[in-house]
């Protein structure tokens, strides 16, 4: 075996550019697979943090179901109410329920206007639960307390003069006009990597009532189950309760109770779709690579016909010739795989670093030994399989004819 490898390496070193170009297919295929897998987890983490799915015990309830791309509660005829929220909180499987409102308001500062989705925080003891639930803190200033109707907190990217429309950094002490009314910033939220939190304004629920027409309507009720295991019970209890309160039958619900698992599921479905797509592309390019190797090996057999004849004259049996070309093809595949894997790891690192910088997350690329070994093994096997037919052709050359060249 060793001598075949030595010979194969020597032969490959003599190869022209054309042979190496045929490796491109294998390279791209392996690079796609390796980068996909190493990026995969980072991608999931990032997407999850984007949608701020942190706590798994949290259930969200909204009227009308998920009907479009508008904020929760928009375009709904029969709104949820504070009373619904209180009723939910009385369920035994529920720890607490927080009614929330989300409203798009005009925000004016520095004579510039931007429309921002503001989010209410409760004006009672639930305010602390709310902060826990959203897992937020401040990078400057302080958190709002109950009853502070004229104060607001702003998200990290809204504070950044390069990211907001006000062309100026804003921070604690600055006053913004929300729908014409003045509010003072008391805190800037820590960067979360979620566009929902980073771009929002948090406002006292009474304060929001005064600048908008929400009245007693509630856009979203955020519910925390007693513990992880009771999350399904809580979901069922809430559904039963709301059916009764809103007088609808099973299957005709005009509200939606969704768990983070369900949300995760739909996101993961999309990610799986992307993965399948990349795997298909990878398979196609690996197939093209395999055809390329078969092609270059066939050419090589023709070019080295005389050499095959000489080898046979000095005692090479058919199997010696076969192994020679077979190993060479495998090695070609392996080299393609090596370059591809290196490329894939590079893309994995670059991609995760890029995502981290862009979104402020800190995920690491998932590169493991097994992934590398199996992709290299795979490319060697693809190469050798592509080499089978050319190697058989080489082996069955007639020595007398072959030696004439």
């Amino acid at each position: 075996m060793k001598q075949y490898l030595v010979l194969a390496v020597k032969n490959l070193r003599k190869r022209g550019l054309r042979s190496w170009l045929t490796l491109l297919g294998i390279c791209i295929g392996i690079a796609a697979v390796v980068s996909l897998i190493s990026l995969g987890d980072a991608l999931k983490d990032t997407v999850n943090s984007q949608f701020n799915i942190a706590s798994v015990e949290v259930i969200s309830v909204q009227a009308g179901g998920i009907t479009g791309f508008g904020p929760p509660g928009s375009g709904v005829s029969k709104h949820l109410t504070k009373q619904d929220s209180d009723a939910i909180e009385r369920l035994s499987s529920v720890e607490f329920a927080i009614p929330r409102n989300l409203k798009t308001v005009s925000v004016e500062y520095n004579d510039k206007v931007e429309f921002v989705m503001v989010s209410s925080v409760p004006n009672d003891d639930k305010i602390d639960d709310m902060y826990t639930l959203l897992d937020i803190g401040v990078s400057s200033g302080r958190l709002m307390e109950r009853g502070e109707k004229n104060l607001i907190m702003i998200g990290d990217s809204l504070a950044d003069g390069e990211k907001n429309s006000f062309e100026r950094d804003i921070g604690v002490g600055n006053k913004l006009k929300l729908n014409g009314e003045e509010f003072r910033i008391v805190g800037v939220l820590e960067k979360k990597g979620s566009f929902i939190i980073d771009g929002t304004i948090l406002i006292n629920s009474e304060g929001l009532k005064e600048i908008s027409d929400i009245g007693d309507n509630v856009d979203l009720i955020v519910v925390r189950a007693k513990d992880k295991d009771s999350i399904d019970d809580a979901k069922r209890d809430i559904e039963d309760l709301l059916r009764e309160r809103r007088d609808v039958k099973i299957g005709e619900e005009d509200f939606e109770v969704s768990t983070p698992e369900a949300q995760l599921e739909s996101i993961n479905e999309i990610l799986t779709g992307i993965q399948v797509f990349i795997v298909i592309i990878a398979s196609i390019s690996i197939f093209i690579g395999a055809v390329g190797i078969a092609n270059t090996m066939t050419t090589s057999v023709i070019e080295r016909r005389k050499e095959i004849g000489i080898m046979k004259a000095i005692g090479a049996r058919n199997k010696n010739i076969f192994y020679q070309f077979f190993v060479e093809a495998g090695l070609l595949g392996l080299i393609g795989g090596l370059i591809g894997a290196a490329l894939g790891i590079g893309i994995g690192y670059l991609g995760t670093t890029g995502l981290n910088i862009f979104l402020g997350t800190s995920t690491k690329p998932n590169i493991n030994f097994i992934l590398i070994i199996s992709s290299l093994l795979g490319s060697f096997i693809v190469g050798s399989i592509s080499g089978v037919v050319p190697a058989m052709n080489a082996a069955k050359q007639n020595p007398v004819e072959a030696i004439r060249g």
Partner: protein
Amino acid sequence: MMGELISLKNVWKIYREGEENAVFALRDISLIIKKGEFVAIMGPSGSGKSTAMNLIGSLDVPSKGDIFLDGHNISHLSESDLAQIRGKKIGFIFQQFNLIPNLTARENVMLPMIFQGSDEFEREKRAGELLKLVELEDRVDHLPSELSGGQQQRVAIARALANDPEVILADEPTGNLDTKTGEKVMDFLNKLHNQGKTIIIVTHDPNLAIENASTTYWLKDGKIDKITKKKGKNKIVGNEK
């Protein structure tokens, strides 16, 4: 018969047999080559001498008739069995040298030993010795392209000797060399003959045949036209001139 190394018995080689344009390369050839002989096969192109060489060198099998190598009938062996036999018993030297271009002199000499399965240490050692024998000990790691024609042919001689074969079969060994280097190559072949090897050269050059070989078979139109034998022992070209 004692001392008989290769014998051809009523051998025919017909290409495209049965077709209209069939070529009768050899017609009913019989000859016997004894151990330790220096034989030349002579003839113009188209006489069938290349075909004869292929059959004697077990590169090919006859259409009709039998070929015996060391007492074994090799006429009906499979290609792989033939390869194994010629690798062990026959050392080839070609007009075009036919070294493997990607391999160094030493690696070229080691190649026939690989196919016979000898171990690596043994191969290296023997390749070194053989290259010393052909006075190329300072060129072992050179590629064929870095060697002159005469040096390449000497590497080919070393390679032919790798598995210590009974027979050296040389096809126009001096055909691509100038007179002086050609003589040096013939010196080596004669030296090997004196050491007891059987040498067969195939050539169209009557001088080369007459000056070196003890028996010369003259081929014409696929038949043996005549056989000439040389008396006396003085076979070294350089001394005869």
